[in-house]
């Protein structure tokens, strides 16, 4: 998650105080990992320095910063580009799963056992996410869905790899 771009995007709706931005960020994007206030204000300061937001005059009140921030045309253009650009697909086969399976086969260890354990761990996490889906608000449901689909992809890979362990073992041991 790009915090500066997310804050910029939130500012495109309407000018806001740092406190309100943090609140909205935590509500929509930071679930389980709230954004520290310090990071909010340092990010806003950098965005202001780069001409992507403007900071209004300090307003009277409690708290460290009572400035109202507004997005500039440069900031708006950056948000527009960012939203239109697809995120690079992650190279899953380079992950630790693949490394462990190949190393296990190379070393004559129990790769099938590892995959079974990994499947169980994935399914445990899927159960937690399924519970969130059952009880949660729509935003939580959609975030859980995203995590579930990624776990499903891993599990499909685990199943396919398990079915091909013999051939994979011959390949990695043959080198």
């Amino acid at each position: 998650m790009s915090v500066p771009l997310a804050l910029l995007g939130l500012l495109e709706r309407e000018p806001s105080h740092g406190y309100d931005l943090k609140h909205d960020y935590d509500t929509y994007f930071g679930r389980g990992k709230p954004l520290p206030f310090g990071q909010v204000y340092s990010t806003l300061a950098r965005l202001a320095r780069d001409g992507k937001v403007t900071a209004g005059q300090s307003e009277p009140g409690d708290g460290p910063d009572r400035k109202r921030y507004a997005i500039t045309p440069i900031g708006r253009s950056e948000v527009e580009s960012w939203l239109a650009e697809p995120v690079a697909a992650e190279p899953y086969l380079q992950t630790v799963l693949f490394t462990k399976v190949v190393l296990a086969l190379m070393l004559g260890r129990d790769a099938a056992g590892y995959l079974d354990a990994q499947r169980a761990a994935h399914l445990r996490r899927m159960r937690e996410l399924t519970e969130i889906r059952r009880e949660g608000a729509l935003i939580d449901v959609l975030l859980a869905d995203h995590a579930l689909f990624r776990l499903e992809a891993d599990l499909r890979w685990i199943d396919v790899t398990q079915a091909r362990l013999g051939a994979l073992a011959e390949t990695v041991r043959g080198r």
Partner: protein
Amino acid sequence: MIVNALLRAEKVSRSYGNTAALVEADLSVTASEVVAIMGPSGSGKSTLLHLLAGIFTPDSGEVWFDGRRLDTLDDSRRSELRRTAFGFVFQFGQLVPELTVADNVALPLLLGRTRRKDAYARAVSWLERLELADLGGRRTGELSGGQTQRVAIARALVTRPRVVFADEPTGALDSLTGEHVMDLLVGLAREEGTTVIVVTHDVRVAACADREIIVRDGRVTDPYAGGVVR
């Protein structure tokens, strides 16, 4: 092995001709547990389900239900047990298309000699719980896939069975409908304290269960073996 298992298979084997479908499979399931049986196509998972449900008998090994040996019962007693203590949900073809939805749900009760009025009252109550109250008079052939499976769940649960066996219950449904069907099946089973054993290749379905076991090449792998159930 889990102490106080409601349903237990011990070194159960079954072959079809020269093909071993299941080899010395062990499995213990406690009361009210929801267990997913997973594995590749042809791995033996449906065979395991049929053996646990007393539909098949093993070539060797033992199947126990509620402290009684299931595999040595004669056909009529196993059949009676299936009617009174077990419920079934399959992927296809379990409803009678000529009968109405309410008839289909009441049928297991009528076969068990429940009075007609009581059987239909219970059928209607279960149809309400499965959000099918308006469809009682419809023929099952007129229903969508999701509605058909919900009727099948109502029919499986109407006798208040100890165990529901489900074989790919969402296999013919789109993912959202399948999810809804599983939520209803597992949710109602938990309310009733019913044990559920579900065969599936769908990890989303397995994620609704308390735990999963894997069947591969006729052999059972239990990632939770060693007494740790959850």
